[in-house]
């Protein structure tokens, strides 16, 4: 009995002691020489939180500016408002979801078409149909507009041509006359992030060099200077990011020439090569056999290969003769790759020099993603790389990121900000953000 009592005392004492948990003393986060009270994010689809081939509410909630802003909360960051689609229209533009795998391991995706935020279409003469989305009204910190190029930031009618921009503007297409640059600088801000420039190269690349053009170098330099000068005119500080190497994304690295050729040869051993219509120089294209340096886009329907096509030389199998080459839109050929890289490196030199002249922080996304492509990256026990789906960083469209990818990018922005301004904005918990979602 006496022992029992003693034992109870010991247990009670034990419970009491367990209450004193060990603590680590961390310094209070500081904003350093920056002021995060009103942070705005300028950019394109990456900034908007676009993922899986669409802009939808869950993606918006996981946008990298939103993650950065959450982390800034402890260092004087203000509220950060995004142009979210409503919960009823949560699927926004619609997007791709993974529904399973074929027996050969290739993914099966299906578009999500319910609960969209599409309000109609507007025909613009000489341009085509513009999809219009449910308008967003209210305060705005995230100005990410999917599809926008740096080249378009001063173009007054742009708000009539891009449905994602149109939904942020008060007026309806085709009556808008506010340029993107005017729109983002209309209200004062203390800090900004800018990740524009990707589409100036990506638009050309993802269309296989066929449906778009690279933004002229001088135009890029002029507009980047104008953009940053305008953004910093009232003393705001900020961070900018470079343009990633287009060839570092799975959109160009998943369906490869050797893999496609191998599959064709398995069925038809006589086939020697795949033929593409490749850039020679300037705007001259000529058919030639494809090599591993030519990149197929992720959306290339490989089932077309070998199908009979009518040509001036008779009916020939698609992609297997110089007279029936694979369409230009499906291939970013070696010369187009080189041309794109040449432009991207000019763009990045411009971005870095303008940022340096204004004393801005720089996140070198080009180097960061190039390094992931070559070496992969391990973050908090998760091994990630640039592979499609299995890599964990890129979403189902092969261009935009998963929530985990965006969290990693957000942390890189934060590291750049902290290094430049002596701030200690805490890093986000990457492990808390999912990669590709599997059914």
């Amino acid at each position, binding site marked *: 009995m006496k*022992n029992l009592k*003693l*034992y109870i005392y*010991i247990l009670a*004492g*034990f419970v009491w*002691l*367990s209450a004193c*948990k*060990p*603590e*680590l003393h*961390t*310094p*209070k*986060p500081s904003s350093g020489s920056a002021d995060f009270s009103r942070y705005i994010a300028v950019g394109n689809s990456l900034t908007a939180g676009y993922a899986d081939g669409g802009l939808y509410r869950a993606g918006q909630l996981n946008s990298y500016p939103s993650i950065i802003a959450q982390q800034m909360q*402890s260092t004087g960051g203000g509220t950060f408002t995004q142009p979210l689609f409503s919960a009823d229209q949560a699927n926004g533009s619609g997007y791709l979801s*993974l529904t*399973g*795998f074929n027996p050969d391991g290739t993914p099966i995706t299906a578009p999500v078409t319910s609960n969209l935020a599409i309000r109609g279409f507007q025909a613009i003469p000489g341009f085509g149909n513009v999809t219009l989305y449910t308008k967003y009204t209210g305060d705005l910190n995230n100005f990410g507009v999917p599809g926008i190029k740096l080249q378009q930031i001063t173009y007054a009618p742009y708000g009539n041509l891009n449905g994602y921009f149109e939904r942020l503007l008060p007026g309806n297409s085709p009556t808008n006359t506010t340029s993107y640059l005017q729109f983002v600088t209309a209200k004062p801000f203390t800090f900004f992030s800018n990740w524009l420039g990707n589409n100036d190269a990506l638009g050309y690349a993802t269309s296989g060099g066929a449906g778009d053009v690279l933004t002229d170098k001088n135009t890029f330099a002029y507009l980047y200077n104008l953009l940053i000068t305008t953004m910093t005119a009232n003393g705001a500080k900020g961070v900018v990011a470079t343009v990633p190497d287009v060839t570092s994304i799975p959109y160009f690295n998943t369906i490869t020439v050797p893999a496609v050729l191998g599959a064709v040869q398995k069925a038809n051993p006589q086939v020697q090569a795949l033929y593409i219509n490749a850039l020679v120089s300037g705007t001259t294209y000529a058919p030639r056999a494809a090599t591993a340096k030519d990149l197929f886009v992720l959306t290339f329907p490989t089932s077309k290969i070998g199908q009979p096509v009518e040509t001036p030389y008779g009916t020939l199998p698609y992609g297997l003769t110089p007279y029936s080459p694979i369409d230009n839109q499906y291939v970013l050929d070696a010369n187009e790759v080189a041309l794109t890289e040449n432009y991207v490196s000019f763009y990045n030199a411009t971005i870095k020099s303008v940022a340096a002249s204004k004393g801005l922080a720089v996140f070198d996304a080009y180097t960061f993603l190039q390094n992931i492509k070559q070496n992969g990256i*391990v*973050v*908090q*026990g*998760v*091994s990630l790389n640039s592979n499609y789906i299995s890599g*964990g960083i890129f979403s189902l469209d092969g261009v935009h990121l998963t*929530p*985990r990818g965006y969290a990693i990018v957000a*942390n890189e922005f*934060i*590291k750049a900000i902290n290094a430049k301004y002596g701030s200690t904005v*805490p*890093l986000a*918990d*990457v*492990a*808390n953000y*999912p*990669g*590709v*979602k*599997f*059914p």
Partner: protein
Amino acid sequence: MRKILLLALALAPVLSFAQGFQVNLEGEKQIGMGHTGTGLAQDGASVFFNPGAVAMLTENYVQGGVSPLVFQSVFNPSGTNEQFHTANKIAPPFTFYGVWGPKDAIWKLGLGVYTPFGGLTDWGTTWPGKYSSEKLDLKAFYFQPTLSVKLTDYISIGAGFVYNRGTVDLTQALPLANNAGQPGQAELKGSGHGYGWNAGIYFKTESGVTVGITHRSQVTTTINNGNAVFTVPASLQAEFPQPNQFSASIPLPATNSIGFGFHPSNKWTYALDFNAVNWHAYKALIFDYKYTTPLLQNTNEPRQYQDAFTLRAGAQYQACQKWAIRFGGGLASAAAPDAYVTPEVPDAARYYLTGGLGYKLASRLDLDLSFEYEHLFARTQTNAYTQLSGTYTSHVYIPGISLSYHW
């Protein structure tokens, strides 16, 4: 003798101070005195501390004790001001010892059941290191029959055979999210066994100082056919065949100890122990699965532990016939080298302070209470394998109680 002592002391700061997942709670009297006992013959716990000293015990013993503990760790991820704590889970290392020999015989038999290794860390399923570890529950029991023989009045030796029974239950998250964004889960649960031995020698020197030297061999717990349970999204289940089994070997390292006992008066006993633990045996944690697939490969996580050292000191004051007061402490070096610290064993150099009370309930019945506070120094680490980066610190409060019957 004094020279050796000085040498040991001089070495101490250089070697700094043994642990990994070693548990040093093998007898309440000894815990009270800083967990010393290699150079003393106090009670049945000598089966563990120095089987060589068992034959020098003047009585026979049956005793049992328990030292419930909560290992409390905190983690601060690098570049953040967040803190993540382990859940309060009570691990109950226990001991049982029996020592018997005919009166005035030169030999004694012993049996020890104790818990020399173990770990219980539960970080939960939402902390930043969940893809490294969510929970580890490791227990290693040793059953040790022992024979000890007195060679002369001054020297005795002893040795025991060790049968080890180990259980492991570990869970971690898998970076494969389902449609709700929830990560997958892996749980590896199994038990295994191993064998080893334990030997020691015990001297009574002319100066009255008692000395013990022991070796406890490495015991490798081999787990075969443990259950490997993977919870993953349905579309990936084929890549994680169920049911599946795993095998693993966990080395429980050898320990070499030398200890000294000083008996300046009837009232005072001092003890000093030095241990070297051959943690270098723990090179990697390897799991081999019965069925592997492109997504489920055998894992080999490097650990690269290094040998670790402990210096312990303690004292006992026999206040009166009925009461004894004990106190002590120790310093231990880390077994996990920089860049190989993992959350399931947030190893670091540590110190501990202990106190104890002994009370004679009856002429043949002792009640011993002990208390230990152990603090692991804060350690900022980026694991080379997982890149989990942050600062750990831990502490442990360990009360203990034992009853000994002797005749």
